[in-house]
Structure formats: structure tokens, C-alpha cells
């Protein structure tokens, strides 16, 4: 099975449980379990290759320019981790089926679990570190969902939030670190990075990359000082804790350290940062665990401690320590997952996980007792269980490690940590299962059904078997995984066995066991001391920190983003002006290179009209209707300007857009105040005038500079002029650019226009569905209405004009390719033809005769344009490649058929539909019952009401 499929299977499978939960909880569990099993089998099919020393690759190019690819690879380390993730995942799925109650949404649970599983598998199989980062963040997100699965519990929500904050923050640091690493190595592929040890360690950025990556790894693996999130994540359902905190989430950090070990390890910085952090975490976690009464909290801190141990081993930087770390990862995953599951069983069956309320469960729950005892003893490091083996190897390594010129500090601290570790493991057995039976358990304790005890039992049997026959069962796996960790170097000599002779490690181990028993014996006294001593509460500190940050950002947001849009606009304008002034004063402006063209009288008249009308808009802007009329003049002058300077297409477009814009604004003004009150102080108006004047000077000056300058590069327009007829088959170059050369832009623009119109329609729907509707229905017009709403002459003229206007539209459309015109202008003209009917004859009359929806017009326009573009594919040409030819029909002149014309038809439909939909939406606001006379025109050829009956009147 392809590696990509293995990583994707859990994500695909995540859809199944929420769907199948309707068929029952078993169906959901089966679908999750089978998905995992399938992925596991797929993984195992690659096992023989990996065991023979090969590395399996799957490559997919994604964005090569950015160094992004979806490359996956599987080596010993990946196989070990993926096996743990999928194998323990399978057990957890079984266990969760029987653990969760009927009230829990199991479909959701399995979906989250599978997503998490997929993300984890993705991390360990990724070859590309950017891809790895994506999966890394996915684990943070999906674990957030899992930890906060019991949404009704505040602890669950807070724990989830804390985990996401801490691991997410670490993830951000790691992104930076890995990007630096990729830059140093010159590739984002792990298989390349791992060969660049010398380059990386010699780089001046090595330390920065190392620290950033380690922050991410430490945050994920709950290393001091980021360890505090892990115990709070225990608010999750126990299957989640068992999964996240034994084999997966917290091991991701270790995985990354192990993965990058060949290139990062071996330096002094690595040793002191990683080994010291691991050491501190190990001792601290073990000490706190001893005083935790909640079973899961105890296990949580013991996890922190063991993660510290593995981190420390990786930090040593020696090959044999790396082997030991790999071995302990396996052992810890087995006994810790089993312990979490038994803790869950105890919680499930007795109703509490408070050690203080437990005790004497030995006889009541013999199976659970046996499992918990074996796993705990393994955790304490008692022979012949697997925990003992890796612990011996660890002590042996620690005994030889020199820390800060001292041969004794590190071994001594490690032994202290080991003693605490033994003590809490013994306490777990003694205070939960041993001692007298009690009568006040919250529920009647008994062993659970096999669904709950089989998964941990399987793990416990592994604990024993690995302990007894380590080299047979896990020897090859440890060998290939260690080989992957230490890279190309030769695997050092080691032996996985119980008896190594009378070594220092044995004495240390024996001492730790005895000390552990002593600590347990003195637990009551120590606990009093512990409770009396002040200690920082991580959650309080964390909450205070988050509080400070959130208040700070609240304040910044409230200051910068205070909702005064005028102020934003002013700041934006002033800032732009400052940038422009800076450029003006620091840059150089070439002298005018081209001569001024002569000014003629017509241009002066136009200029005066334009300037005066624009100024009048400002002067009279308080009288809104007047301002609207005057701005119409401005638009008209702009259109004439385009015409004057050889742009007939622009002039046509501008004038037709002007018409619809003014109509639109008039319609809107119908519902808005007709005047603008004086709101700003004189000072403010003066300030705004200064800002506006400076902006005007700046833009005008820039325009003048451009007009008097020459092109610094030859213009690409020459290409368009030269190829318009040859390549595009049209002589109107502007139109050919729109529908052919830059057809893709135009395609995007008609889509944008269509979206704008549909949004306008949706807004109208939403507004008319709210209480605004009642207001509109009861609205009294604020000025007197015209006596004749539909003047006869206007109705007649517009109806007569309708076919003429449509014909003009069609004409403009068809000539567009060769003469000024085209889809845009034709669309606007046709829209105006329809709008005339709305205006003259009334909305109701027109709407009753207009049978097609404007959405459909927009949609068909976009679809026609798209289909035209796709047509090119059938000729193996890129999207929107045009074609044209000439057709001779008898009796007619030769005429041209071009696909560009079809595309222009799409433009035409989209534009006319969008304009009409926007105006129609606005017009719907005006609808009131009874305002529409039945017939806008007295003489209506279609009128169907009965003629006035004079005889009847006479009788009355």
C-alpha cells in the first residue's frame, strides 16, 4: 500500500463513524477499527523491506517552486512510530467502544480520533519538513477536539485550550526553526537534510534553529517548563488520555528530536539544552507524581517524567543512549497505555479515581489488579519486566555521563528521579489495590467485561514478553529504528537482556527500588510536608498570562479599531500621502521629455464643465438630489473626455454605466434622507479639505509627470496592435484584448460582477425578511408623489423605444469585434432598455411580463464564457484560446465567426443580468400594497377588465 494512502486512510475513514453512528455504536466502532486495521496492514506490508534495511519512498510534487512536495518515506523509526500509533490506536478504539457511555456522541469521538491518528501517522511518515509541519499542526487541532471532547465540563474546555495554546505556540516556534533548518540545508526534504550534518552544525544559524525546533518539541512532549498542559489534558475521556499520552501526541516531540538527531545532536548546545531539560523534567515530574491522588494525574506526571527520561537520553548524544531511548519509547508506550486503560477501568467500575477513596481492590478486581501490578512494576523498573531493561541501560549511560565537569551530579539526580519513579509506581499498587477492603466505594467494584480488559491485557502481556525475550521480540525493531536515529553511523554494541552482571547500573537500580519503598513507607509524613510547602500553581500562572495578553490585545484593538470609519479613511489617506511625499523628496524626477499638446477651445469648455460640476457635487452635497444631478454631469464629461482622446469604447461604457448608476442612486435615495445635516465642525472640514487637497495635488502631479514623461520600457501594446487582426480576427483592439488576449481577466471580472449582483439580491432578501419590511410597508413618502405615477407619454415612448433599444444593443454587440462596442456595452444598453420599462410602467407591470430570472441570465453568461474557454481543450489548446474563421453564405457578404464572439455573448449576458438583478433588487423595496394601478396606461391593448357599464350606473 502506498505510504500516502496509509497516512490518508485515517482521514478518509474519519467520515465513516459519524455517518454510521445511525446504524448503532458498534457500526461506528467497526468502521473506525477496520480503517485503522487496514492502515496497519498496509504499513506491515512494507515491514520486510524496512527490516532488510531499505527505505520506502513515495513522492508527489506539489509546489516545486516553494520546495513543497508530498514526499513520504518509511524507515525503521517511522515504522516503529507508525506501528505504535496504529497498533495502540486499534486497541484504544476497541476500549473506547466499551468505555464511552450512551450519552457520548461516539461517531464524533471516532472521527476526531481517526483525524488525530492520521495526523500522527503523517508526522512520522513525512519526508518533507513542511509537510511534517502541516501534520504537526493538525495533531494540535485534532487533539484539541479530543481533549475537549466532554464539552460540558469546564475542565475539559480549559484543558483543551491550554493544550492548544502551549503546543500551538511551540508549533509556531518550530515552523521558524524548521524553515531555518531547511534554508541551511538547502532543501526541505528530510532525506537531504539528514545528510548535511557538517553544513548544519557549522552554520551560524544552527543555534537559532536548534532552540526554535526544541521549543516546539519540548512543548509537544511536555518538557519543563511546558509540562503543565499535560496534567490538565487529563480532563479528556480516558481512552484519549491513554492514546495521546502513551504512544502518540507527546511522543511527537520525541520523534522529531530522534528524527533530527543525526544532524542536530552531538554539539555542546544540544547536550546541555536537551539533556538538562530532560533531567529536570524527569526528576520534577516523578516528584509531583508521588503526591498526586488522582490516578490519572499521577499517570500524567509519570508520563512527564518518562518523557523527560527519553529526552535526556536523546540529549546525551551518544549512539548507545539513542538506542536506549528508542527501546524505552517502546516500553513506555506499552506499560503506560496499559496503565491508563486500567485507571479508566477503575474509574469506570468504582466511580472514582481518587487514590484516597480507593484501596483493597485486589480481591474485588483481580484481573485489573494483575494488569495494573505488572504494568506498574515495569514502570518502577523491576525485573524481569520490560521497564527494567531500558531503565538499566539508561542508568548505565547516566553513570558514564559527565555533566558540567562532574561525574556525580547527573547520576545522583537520575537515581533520585528513579527512586521517586519507583515510589509512585509502588504507591499506585499499594494504595489502590492492597490494604483492607472498604465499604464506601462510590459504586460496587468488579472486573469489567472483556471489551475493557482485553486491550490492556494484550499490552501487559507484551510488557512481560518483551521483558523476558526482548532480543527476540523487539530486537530487530530496536535495531532498525536505532539505525534510523543514528543515521549512517554503525550501530554500537548493545544487548537487550536482563542480567548484565554486577554493574554500577545494577547498584543504582537496587538503591532506587529500596529508596522507593522507603518513600512509600514515609508517604504520609512526606505528603504533609508537600502540602505545607508553597508551590507555584501552573494553571493560575497560565491563566494570568493569558489574561494579560488578552486584555492587552483588547486594548490595542479598541484603540486602533474603534469603528470610526472616517478616521480609518483619513489615516489611510494621510499615510499614503506621507509615503508619496517621501518618495517625491528622496527620488529623482526626470525633466519633461515630451512636448505639451496644444489646447483647443473645446477642451477648455469640457475642462470647465468637469471641474465646476465636480466642485458643485462637493458644495451642494448636503442637498442630495441636486448633488446626484450634478454628478451626472461629471460622469457625462468624463465620458466625453474618453471620446475626445480616442477611446470610443470607454466613452460608450462610461455613459451607459453612468445612466444605470444614477438610476440606482435615485432608487436608493428614495428611502434615505434627502439632505445631509451639518455634522462636522468647521475645523474638521478644514482639516479634511487640506487632506483632500494634498491628495489631489499628489495624484494630479503624478499624472502630469507621467503624461510629460516617456515610456522607460517598450509598451506591450504594440504586440496587441500587431496581432489583433492576425491572431484575434478583430479590428477593435480594445475588444480583442478583452475577449481574447486578456480573456481570462474578463472571465474573472464577469464572475465578480455576478457575485456582486447575487450578494445584492441576498442582502435584499435578508433585509426584506427582517422587521424592516413592516417599516417599508407602512412608509409614508416624505414628499408629495407625482399626480400621475406613469405619465402616458413616457409609457408610450418607452414601449416604442424598447425594440429599438434592444436592436441597438444587438447591433453594438455584433459590431463589437471590429468597431466600438462589444459585450460589456451591449449588456448595459439592453439592461437600460429593460430599466426604462420598470421606470415608466412600474415595477409590477414589468415584473409580470418578465418571465426569466436574472440569476439565470448571470449564470448562463458565466457558463457560456466558461464553456467557450473549455472548448479550446478539445483542440489540445489552453483554456480560452480563441479561434475564428470566415463564412460565405449565398446572398450575403462574407462574415466572420469567432469563438471570441461566443465568449463576448457570455460577457453580455452576465453584465446585463447583473445590472438588472441589482436594480430589480433595489426596486423591490418600494413595493407597497395598492400603490400600483392595475394598468399604467389607460389605453392598453391587452387590458382585460370589463368596459364600464353605463347602464348600471344609470340605474343607480
Amino acid at each position, binding site marked *: 500500500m502506498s505510504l500516502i494512502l496509509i497516512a490518508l486512510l485515517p482521514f478518509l475513514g474519519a467520515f465513516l463513524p459519524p455517518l454510521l453512528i445511525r446504524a448503532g455504536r458498534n457500526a461506528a466502532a467497526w468502521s473506525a477499527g477496520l480503517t485503522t486495521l487496514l492502515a496497519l496492514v498496509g504499513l506491515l506490508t512494507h515491514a520486510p523491506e524496512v527490516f532488510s534495511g531499505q527505505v520506502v519512498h513515495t513522492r508527489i510534487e506539489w509546489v516545486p517552486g516553494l520546495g513543497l512536495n508530498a514526499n513520504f518515506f518509511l524507515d525503521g523509526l517511522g515504522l516503529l512510530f507508525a506501528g505504535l500509533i496504529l497498533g495502540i490506536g486499534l486497541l484504544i478504539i476497541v476500549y473506547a467502544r466499551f468505555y464511552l457511555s450512551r450519552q457520548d456522541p461516539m461517531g464524533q469521538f471516532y472521527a476526531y480520533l481517526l483525524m488525530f491518528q492520521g495526523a500522527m501517522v503523517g508526522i512520522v511518515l513525512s519526508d518533507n519538513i513542511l509537510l511534517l509541519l502541516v501534520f504537526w499542526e493538525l495533531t494540535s487541532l485534532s487533539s484539541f477536539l479530543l481533549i475537549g471532547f466532554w464539552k460540558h465540563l469546564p475542565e475539559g474546555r*480549559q484543558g483543551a485550550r491550554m493544550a492548544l495554546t502551549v503546543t500551538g505556540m511551540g508549533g509556531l516556534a518550530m515552523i521558524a526553526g524548521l524553515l531555518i533548518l531547511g534554508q541551511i540545508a538547502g532543501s526541505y526534504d528530510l532525506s537531504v537534510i539528514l545528510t548535511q550534518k557538517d553544513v548544519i552544525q557549522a552554520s551560524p544559524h544552527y543555534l537559532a534553529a536548534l532552540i526554535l525546533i526544541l521549543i516546539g518539541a519540548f512543548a509537544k512532549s511536555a518538557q519543563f517548563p511546558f509540562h503543565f498542559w499535560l496534567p490538565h489534558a487529563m480532563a479528556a475521556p480516558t481512552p484519549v488520555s491513554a492514546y495521546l499520552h502513551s504512544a502518540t501526541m507527546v511522543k511527537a516531540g520525541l520523534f522529531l528530536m530522534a528524527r533530527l538527531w543525526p544532524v542536530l545532536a552531538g554539539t555542546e548546545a544540544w547536550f546541555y539544552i536537551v539533556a538538562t531539560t530532560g533531567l529536570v523534567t524527569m526528576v520534577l515530574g516523578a516528584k509531583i507524581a508521588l503526591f498526586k491522588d488522582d490516578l490519572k494525574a499521577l499517570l500524567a506526571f509519570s508520563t512527564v517524567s518518562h518523557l523527560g527520561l527519553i529526552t535526556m537520553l536523546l540529549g546525551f548524544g551518544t549512539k548507545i543512549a539513542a538506542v536506549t531511548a528508542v527501546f524505552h519509547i517502546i516500553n513506555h508506550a506499552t506499560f503506560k497505555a496499559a496503565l491508563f486503560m486500567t485507571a479508566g477501568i477503575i474509574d469506570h467500575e468504582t466511580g472514582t479515581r481518587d487514590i484516597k477513596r480507593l484501596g483493597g481492590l485486589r480481591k474485588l478486581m483481580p484481573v485489573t489488579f494483575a494488569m495494573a501490578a505488572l504494568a506498574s512494576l515495569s514502570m518502577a523498573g523491576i525485573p524481569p519486566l520490560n521497564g527494567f531493561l531500558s531503565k538499566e541501560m539508561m542508568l548505565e549511560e547516566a553513570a558514564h555521563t559527565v555533566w558540567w565537569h562532574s561525574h556525580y551530579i547527573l547520576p545522583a539526580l537520575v537515581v533520585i528521579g528513579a527512586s521517586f519513579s519507583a515510589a509512585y509506581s509502588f504507591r499506585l499498587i499499594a494504595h489502590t489495590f492492597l490494604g483492607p477492603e472498604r465499604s464506601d466505594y462510590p459504586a460496587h467494584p468488579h472486573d469489567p467485561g472483556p471489551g475493557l480488559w482485553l486491550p490492556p491485557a494484550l499490552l501487559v502481556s507484551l510488557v512481560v514478553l518483551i521483558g523476558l525475550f526482548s532480543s527476540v521480540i523487539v530486537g530487530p525493531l530496536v535495531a532498525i529504528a536505532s539505525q534510523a536515529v543514528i543515521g549512517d553511523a554503525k550501530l554500537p554494541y548493545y544487548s537487550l537482556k536482563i542480567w548484565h552482571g554486577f554493574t554500577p547500573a545494577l547498584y543504582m537500580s537496587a538503591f532506587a527500588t529500596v529508596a522507593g519503598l522507603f518513600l512509600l513507607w514515609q508517604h504520609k509524613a512526606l505528603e504533609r510536608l508537600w502540602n505545607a510547602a508553597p508551590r507555584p500553581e501552573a494553571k493560575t500562572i497560565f491563566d494570568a498570562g493569558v489574561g494579560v495578553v488578552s486584555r492587552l490585545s*483588547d486594548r490595542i484593538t*479598541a484603540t486602533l*479599531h*474603534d*469603528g470610526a*470609519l472616517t478616521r480609518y479613511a483619513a489615516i489611510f489617506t494621510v499615510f499614503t500621502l506621507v509615503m508619496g511625499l517621501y518618495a517625491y523628496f528622496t527620488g529623482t524626477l526626470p525633466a519633461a521629455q*515630451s512636448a*505639451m*499638446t496644444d489646447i483647443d477651445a473645446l477642451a477648455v469648455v469640457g475642462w470647465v464643465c468637469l471641474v465646476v460640476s*465636480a*466642485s458643485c*457635487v*462637493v458644495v451642494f*452635497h448636503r442637498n442630495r438630489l441636486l*448633488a*446626484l444631478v450634478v454628478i451626472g454631469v461629471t*460622469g457625462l464629461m468624463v465620458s466625453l473626455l*474618453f471620446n475626445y482622446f*480616442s*477611446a470610443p469604447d*470607454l466613452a460608450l*461604457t*462610461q455613459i451607459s*454605466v453612468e445612466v444605470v*448608476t444614477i438610476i440606482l*442612486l435615485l432608487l436608493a435615495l428614495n*428611502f*434615505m434622507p434627502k439632505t*445631509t445635516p451639518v455634522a*462636522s465642525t468647521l475645523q474638521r472640514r478644514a482639516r*479634511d479639505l487640506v*487632506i483632500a487637497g494634498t491628495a*489631489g495635488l499628489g495624484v*494630479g*502631479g*503624478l*499624472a*502630469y509627470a*507621467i*503624461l510629460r514623461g516617456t515610456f522607460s520600457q517598450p*509598451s506591450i*501594446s504594440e504586440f*496587441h496592435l500587431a496581432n489583433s487582426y492576425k491572431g484575434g480576427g478583430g*479590428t*477593435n*483592439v*480594445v475588444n480583442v484584448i*478583452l475577449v481574447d488576449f486578456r480573456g481570462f481577466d474578463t472571465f474573472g471580472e464577469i464572475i465578480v460582477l455576478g457575485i*456582486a*449582483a447575487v450578494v*445584492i439580491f441576498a*442582502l435584499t432578501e435578508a*433585509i426584506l425578511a427582517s422587521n*424592516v419590511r413592516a417599516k417599508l410597508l407602512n412608509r409614508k413618502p416624505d414628499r408629495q408623489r407625482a399626480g400621475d405615477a406613469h405619465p402616458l407619454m413616457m409609457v408610450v415612448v418607452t414601449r416604442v423605444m424598447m425594440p429599438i433599444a434592444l436592436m441597438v444593443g444587438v447591433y453594438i454587440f455584433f459590431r463589437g469585434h471590429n468597431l*466600438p462596442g462589444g459585450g460589456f456595452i451591449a449588456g448595459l444598453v439592453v439592461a437600460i432598455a429593460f430599466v426604462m420599462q420598470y421606470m415608466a410602467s412600474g415595477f409590477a407591470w414589468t415584473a409580470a411580463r418578465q418571465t426569466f430570472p436574472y440569476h439565470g441570465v448571470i449564470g448562463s453568461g458565466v457558463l457560456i464564457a466558461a464553456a467557450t474557454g473549455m472548448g479550446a481543450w478539445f483542440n489540445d489548446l489552453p483554456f480560452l484560446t480563441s479561434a475564428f474563421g470566415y463564412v460565405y453564405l449565398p446572398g450575403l457578404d462574407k462574415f466572420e465567426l469567432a469563438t471570441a464572439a461566443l465568449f463576448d455573448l457570455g460577457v453580455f449576458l452576465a453584465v446585463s443580468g447583473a445590472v438588472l438583478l*441589482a436594480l430589480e*433588487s*433595489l426596486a423591490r*423595496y418600494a413595493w407597497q400594497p395598492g400603490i400600483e394601478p392595475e394598468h399604467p396606461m389607460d389605453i392598453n391593448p391587452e387590458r382585460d377588465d370589463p368596459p364600464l357599464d353605463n347602464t348600471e350606473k344609470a340605474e343607480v
Partner: protein
Amino acid sequence: MEILVASAIAVLTTCGVYLVLRRRTFPVILGISLLSYAVNIFLFSTGRLVQHLPPILIKHGHTSYTDPLPQALVLTAIVISFGMTALVVMIALGAFLSSDEDEIDMKDTPESGEAQ
């Protein structure tokens, strides 16, 4: 001629920016329209001011034409600016009808943070 066009752009920009800085929706919409004119003429003028040479190819006669590219850009800009104006008008109208208020500055205090 250049000075006329540049000064027209300047006046349109000044009027547009001044109106955009007003507090009511309607003047702001008018201001955006005036600014659109200014921007469109500015873009158009980057192709230089040429008279009587529209970019319509003809077989016989002169062989030089004005720059067609800015024209194509401005043509779509005009149509898109209509879409934008229509959308802004609709938002302004909806806001006015729902709140009887056409000021654009929001007055309410920032919302309180999420309860822990």
C-alpha cells in the same frame, strides 16, 4: 492639454477624498464615484493623450494608433466600479433602514471578551 487632464484628475481626487471623509453614507458613496472617475482617467492617461487615433485597425491610411491596453483595463474597471457602487449602496441602504441612522462611524464600545 496634459495640464488640463492632470488638473482635472487633481480636482476629481480632491472632491472625491473630501466626500469620502464625510460621516454620512450618501456623500461617501458620491465621493467613491468621483474617486473612481479620477482613477479611471488616471489609468487611461498612462496611455498618453492622443486625438483622432482610436485603436480600431484600418486597412488604409494612418498606421499609428493610441495605446489600447489602458483602455481595456479601464473598460472593465468602469463596469466593476458599477458593481461596487451598487453593493455599497445596498449595504448603506440596509443599514439605514435597519437602524434609522446613516452615519458610518460605529459608536458602540468594543464587545467584552469571552467569559472564562
